[in-house]
């Protein structure tokens, strides 16, 4: 597959400019962050080296930390569960609609809008009925008054309200990926299967699913990383409140660094986030490599 044997200098010309920039502006900063995670530092006055003290505090003394980890992971799970749904939609679209691209483009629109707009919109949906919130208004008009809630302020519900917005926003994103994947499967395969008597869902089981695995994996990894880093939406809609009920890892990091002026501690949380990301992505990759091998 890799055909070109080129001199090292050529490789350098192709790779180094981008790699250097990337290493300097993404890698080194995060290494610096890993280091500041070992300091007790308010970001202003002189720092004090505390080794893993911040991590110890984080794991054992911070009442906000573990719940925010739990919410983040739940976020990731919810986002990943959305993907099979998107795949199903994609298969149906491919089968029933000739120019599915247009539909997919429409589904994709929320992705391109800035979080500020999306946050404002969904706040008006979730508002209490007394402030004209749409969801509660609809429930009341259906006679389901007892189902109404303060969606963004009841600690047990607020996080789910946020998950939903995120699922809504990225529905089109994952559908797009899955749809293009499905479209890319050569028609000949299905025609051949038809001759063998495999049609419809049977064909999906034996042709679509095995061939879609790599793309499915991409979606899963993107969804996972995306939800671990989820930040803007939470900030715009609840800022982690009420009383940390919607804090996720990244908002907890941000608030610790910039609001509580515990910069070292915030960096420690960031390190944790990056490590979790790496470990889980590696984990997902291994699982999918197994699945792929099984199919082939």
């Amino acid at each position, binding site marked *: 597959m890799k055909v070109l044997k080129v001199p090292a200098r050529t490789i350098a010309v192709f790779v180094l400019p981008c790699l250097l920039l990337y290493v300097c502006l*993404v890698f080194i900063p995060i290494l610096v962050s890993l280091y500041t995670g070992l300091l007790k530092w308010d970001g202003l006055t002189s720092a004090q080296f505390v080794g893993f003290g911040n991590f110890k505090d984080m794991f054992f003394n911070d009442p906000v930390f573990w719940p925010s980890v739990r919410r983040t992971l739940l976020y990731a799970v919810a986002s990943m569960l959305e993907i099979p749904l998107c795949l199903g939609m994609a298969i149906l679209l491919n089968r029933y609609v000739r120019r599915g691209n247009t539909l997919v483009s429409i*589904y994709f629109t929320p*992705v391109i809008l800035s979080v500020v707009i999306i946050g404002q919109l969904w706040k008006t949906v979730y508002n209490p009925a007394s402030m004209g919130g749409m969801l509660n208004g609809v429930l009341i008009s259906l006679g389901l008054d007892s189902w109404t809630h303060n969606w963004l302020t009841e600690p047990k519900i607020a996080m789910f309200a946020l998950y939903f917005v995120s699922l809504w926003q990225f529905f089109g994103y994952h559908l797009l990926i899955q749809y293009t994947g499905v479209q890319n499967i050569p028609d000949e395969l299905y025609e051949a299967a038809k001759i063998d008597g495999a049609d419809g869902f049977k064909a999906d089981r034996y042709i679509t699913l095995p061939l879609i695995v790599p793309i499915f994996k991409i979606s899963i990894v993107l969804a996972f990383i995306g939800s671990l880093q989820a*930040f803007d939406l939470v900030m715009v809609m609840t800022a982690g409140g009420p009383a940390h009920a919607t804090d996720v890892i990244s908002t907890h990091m941000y608030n610790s660094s910039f609001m509580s002026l515990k910069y070292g501690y915030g960096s420690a949380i960031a390190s944790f986030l990056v490590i979790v990301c790496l470990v889980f992505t590696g984990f997902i990759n291994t699982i999918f490599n197994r699945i792929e091998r099984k199919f082939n």
Partner: protein
Amino acid sequence: MRKFKKGIVYLLFAIPVVTQLYPLLWLVLYSLKTNEEIMDGSFFSFPKSFQWHNYSEAYTSGSYLKYLSNSVFVTGVTMICVIVLASMVAYAISRFRWKYGNIVMTIFLMGMMIPMQATLLPLMIIFKNIHVLNTHLSLILPYIAFSTPIAVFILSGFMRDIPHEIEESAFIDGASVYRIFRSIILPVSIPPVMTVCILTFINIWNEYILAATFISSEKLKTLPFGVYTFVSQYSVNYGNIGAFLVMGALPVILIYFFLSNKITKGMVAGAVKG
């Protein structure tokens, strides 16, 4: 029965059209209402009369054109750089025979796990020392750096599948690697390049935190900053905010609808081989 099934499926397709498009319609209606109509909170209503002056007010009080041209400049330069740099790396990773290709790829992929907020302070210190704070460069550089992972990922996936016969024959004809890259590889890679363009564009166009932190001069600020400050000024006029939001979103929406078919194609191309 068959028809019934088909009906259900079409309904299934129609529901997301409503839910996903509604925000745009909502925003446009919002921007044309009076304060009282908005505060009313009635969600489906049309404004009694269209308040077009919301737009003229937002336009005059928000330095829209200045922010817009800054955004266009920053985003444009970033996109060109991302495409050139990332496709070069992607080409090297996917087509060259060398030892460290996979390592370089892994390094880039790891970048996707790094949350931008965590790098805010280190970047600030770096930029202070190379004296680019409060210039457009202080945005363009990190934007490029943070956009390359996904770009390399998509482009190398595509390039891996370009039939190598094309390259080989050109190579035998005596074309240099640079020439092959420029006149063969890049042209056939247009679909995934389009995808990269749109993804990069969306991310950068809406980016706010770096922009607000590194830029202090009014004349250098970008559009998301304008939108954000506008939104944070609740006490003024909701309609103006809506109008500014629409104007802020308009470029993305336009570009997206012109290129949306290309993005689907490019995504396939890039995604096939992860």
